[in-house]
């Protein structure tokens, strides 16, 4: 192991910023990060061992204790639940003889939950040693179990097990206009970079990650900052449950995304770029690197790009299982080899970003749009959409509908048109913008997809009338508690309190006052949290409580007070010790009145 780590770090000339890459390699090789490895990494990279441990314990894909040689993770997103996640979990436990959350005694396989893998249109999905396994079925699980038990290396597994589909079902101005590699750069240099930024301004393009900051303004701010170096970052940490459009864009339109990043670099004066790719999209890593190489061959990256004096290159950095890294300042921390904890703002990344350098962070779809605008002009783009939301939005539609997949729609489209188009029937409600967004009921379909009405980073999850709203809210609330980085008190403690309080109500232990307490807690977490995660973590509860208060009330017991714990369950240890299970060894919780 000593040689493995020595070679890994010295051959790649890894710096402290590459800690995640080092840990990913060690985890892949040994299926955990041994203590001796921590010591060696800290010494070789000249960082405190506490930083190494901190990073290991922060990211879900790193472990201090051994996992199986085959690390099997099943996606725990609500969309996977709807497609049979529970049944598949039970089946896996049976055929692989391993319980969820455990390592099999022979150490060959471990099995656990993981947050949404971005395969919501082809779930239930899993990851095997980081690689995506879409659309699990019992026969597929049998096949996987055989391959594992025969200890067959992953590269010998049948390719069809890993086949991820694009499912593009509706195209618009972006997806219809594929560009030749270099087309946007040639157009921009010909027009002039300042003029191209002006076109971008005219286009009215706003960030596609969900927050909607005007892209031209962000680039302008960064360009105006006095600095020797600037950085371009593409946020491909698409972690919002129900979102998978960046996966498709990177799979089929990567040239255009990289071109947008290169254009940004030319305009703001950056030489270094990063694509921060979520760990769940490991299956795209080699393909994307090949495209980067192709672009270097084509003189679209590297030195003297298309014969100019402009130099720029892009590096792909993989995440390791942390939703919070989709927050731009947490993403930058992660790029620097640290825990993904959101920074205090100001200063903002456009002035102090990666290693303190002015940095533009944009979403995958945003960069793709900039490249298209550079070719077709701002007016062309602005002709589509609404006054405040120009252009189109690429939606990831999943859940209860006949045709889940990617839909490019013009901003301003009504929910009703989308519902009709994707073949959704008997709809109960729709989660728009993922758990951090809004749950709308079936009486609100006249509303529109737009920054001024229903903003979304792309997630669009449809629920029909067979679904239980409290199950959905419970899944989302557990998700946020799991993904809270723990930096600030209101989110660290608050998201776990929300989880416990909601569990209490959902499991029928709530009494009068518990819904009021839940709502108060929601407001506190929403208004006092440090970053967007905490500020939106209560949205699933708040948006459904507003629409379906009777659902919550119906869960409550008709008593004025219910203890926070289960009296009878608390006696279980005593019963086992006394070897008793008679009626007198049980207590009723509270006399029902």
């Amino acid at each position: 192991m000593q040689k493995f780590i020595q070679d890994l770090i010295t051959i790649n000339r890894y710096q402290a910023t590459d800690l995640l890459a080092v840990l990913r390699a060690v985890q892949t090789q040994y299926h955990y990060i041994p203590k001796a490895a921590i010591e060696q990494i800290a010494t070789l990279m000249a960082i405190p061992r506490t930083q190494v441990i901190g990073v290991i314990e922060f990211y879900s894909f790193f472990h201090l204790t051994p996992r199986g040689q085959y690390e099997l993770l099943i996606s725990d997103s609500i969309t996977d639940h709807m497609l049979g996640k529970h049944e598949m979990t039970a089946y896996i436990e049976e055929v692989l003889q391993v319980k969820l959350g455990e390592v099999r005694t022979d150490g060959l396989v471990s099995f656990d939950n993981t947050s949404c893998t971005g395969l919501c249109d082809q779930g239930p999905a899993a990851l095997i040693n980081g690689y995506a396994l879409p659309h699990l079925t019992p026969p597929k699980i049998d096949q996987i179990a055989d391959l594992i038990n025969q200890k067959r290396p992953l590269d010998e597994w049948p390719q069809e097990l890993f086949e991820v589909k694009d499912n593009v079902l509706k195209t618009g101005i972006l997806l219809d206009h594929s560009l030749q590699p270099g087309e946007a750069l040639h157009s921009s240099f010909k027009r002039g970079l300042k003029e191209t930024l002006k076109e971008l301004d005219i286009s009215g393009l706003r960030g596609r990650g969900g927050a909607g900051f005007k892209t031209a303004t962000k680039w302008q701010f960064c360009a105006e900052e006095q600095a020797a170096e600037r950085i371009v970052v593409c946020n491909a940490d698409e972690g919002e449950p129900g979102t998978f459009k960046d996966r498709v864009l990177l799979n089929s339109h990567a040239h255009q995304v990289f071109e947008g990043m290169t254009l940004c670099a030319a305009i703001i004066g950056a030489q270094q770029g990063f694509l921060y790719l979520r760990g769940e999209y490991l299956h795209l890593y080699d393909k994307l690197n090949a495209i980067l190489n192709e672009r270097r061959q084509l003189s679209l990256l590297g030195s003297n790009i298309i014969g100019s004096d402009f130099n720029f290159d892009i590096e792909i950095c993989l995440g390791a299982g942390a939703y919070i890294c989709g927050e731009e300042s947490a993403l930058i921390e992660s790029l620097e080899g640290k825990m993904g904890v959101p920074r205090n703002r100001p200063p903002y990344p456009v002035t102090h970003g990666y290693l303190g350098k002015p940095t533009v962070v944009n979403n995958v779809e945003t960069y793709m749009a900039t490249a298209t605008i550079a070719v077709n002009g701002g007016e062309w783009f602005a002709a589509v959409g609404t006054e405040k939301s120009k252009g189109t939005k690429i939606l990831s539609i999943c859940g209860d509908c006949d045709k889940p997949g990617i839909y490019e729609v013009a901003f301003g489209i009504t929910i009703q048109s989308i519902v009709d188009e994707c073949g959704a029937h008997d709809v109960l409600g729709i989660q728009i913008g993922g758990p951090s967004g809004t749950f709308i009921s079936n009486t609100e379909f006249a509303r529109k997809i737009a920054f001024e009405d229903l903003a979304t980073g792309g997630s669009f999850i449809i629920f029909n009338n067979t679904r239980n709203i409290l199950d959905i809210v419970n899944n989302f609330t557990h998700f946020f508690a799991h993904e809270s980085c723990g930096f600030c008190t209101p989110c660290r403690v608050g998201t776990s309190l929300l989880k416990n309080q909601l569990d209490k109500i959902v499991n029928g232990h709530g009494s009068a006052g518990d819904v009021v307490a839940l709502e108060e807690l929601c407001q506190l977490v929403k208004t006092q949290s440090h970053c967007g995660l905490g500020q939106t973590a209560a949205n699933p509860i708040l948006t459904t409580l507003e629409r379906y208060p009777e659902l919550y009330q119906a869960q409550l017991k008709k008593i004025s007070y219910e203890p926070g714990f289960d009296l009878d369950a608390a006696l279980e240890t005593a019963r086992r010790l006394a070897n008793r299970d008679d009626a007198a060894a049980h207590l009723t919780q509270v006399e029902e009145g």
Partner: protein
Amino acid sequence: MAKTITIDGLSIPFEDGQTIMQAASDAGVYIPHLCHHPEFTPHGSCKLCTVKVNGRNCSACTFPAMEGQEVINNAKDLNADRQKITQMLFVEGNHFCPSCEKTGNCQLQAVAYHLNMLDDHFPLFYQHRELDASHTDILIDHNRCIFCTLCVRASHEHDGKEVFAISGRGINKHLIVNSESGLLKDTNMTASDKAAHICPTGAILIKHTAYQVPIGERIYDHQQIDQVSLNSEQVDHDK
């Protein structure tokens, strides 16, 4: 003409580069806080110092003072939220004031008194947390850690060491120490380190000094934290 902001209607002067917290404490205005200490880089994590700046919630310890800001600090709704955040810190760890050596000298307890916290409000987590009594002179009781990172910052910024760090995610966050064994005795920490004396709660204690000051004669037994904080931190600031 000095630049000014207003806090609760009062005009407060500030210098460029100062945070709202610094300007406030220089002017004798107390903003409740636990993770802030004037000698160290602000952290902004406890969220007790949240104030409304032109209507928007901001952490006073990290947010720069800027001409024309109207800051609301001592307001009923903000103090109610601060009380709840303090209650969160109490239920997250295991804080049993009557049996804690830090009682009366504890900032968490003093802030709770100041905010008129009368109960825990939230259900307790009863988290299992360890004690590290390995060091001859210093004790770590993880039950009382609130993740303010003051020991982390003091060790790094003042002592020139890296004894402490925060590890883990979400509710599983915990304090770790920089030694191969994971024990404090194997670090280069000494009782004279600033980091040994900075903990606002009873998570880091100096051994062999317990109860030398009797209960009833301790810092917050006769004074409120707003007064103590302003006196000590203004002095610190002038150094």
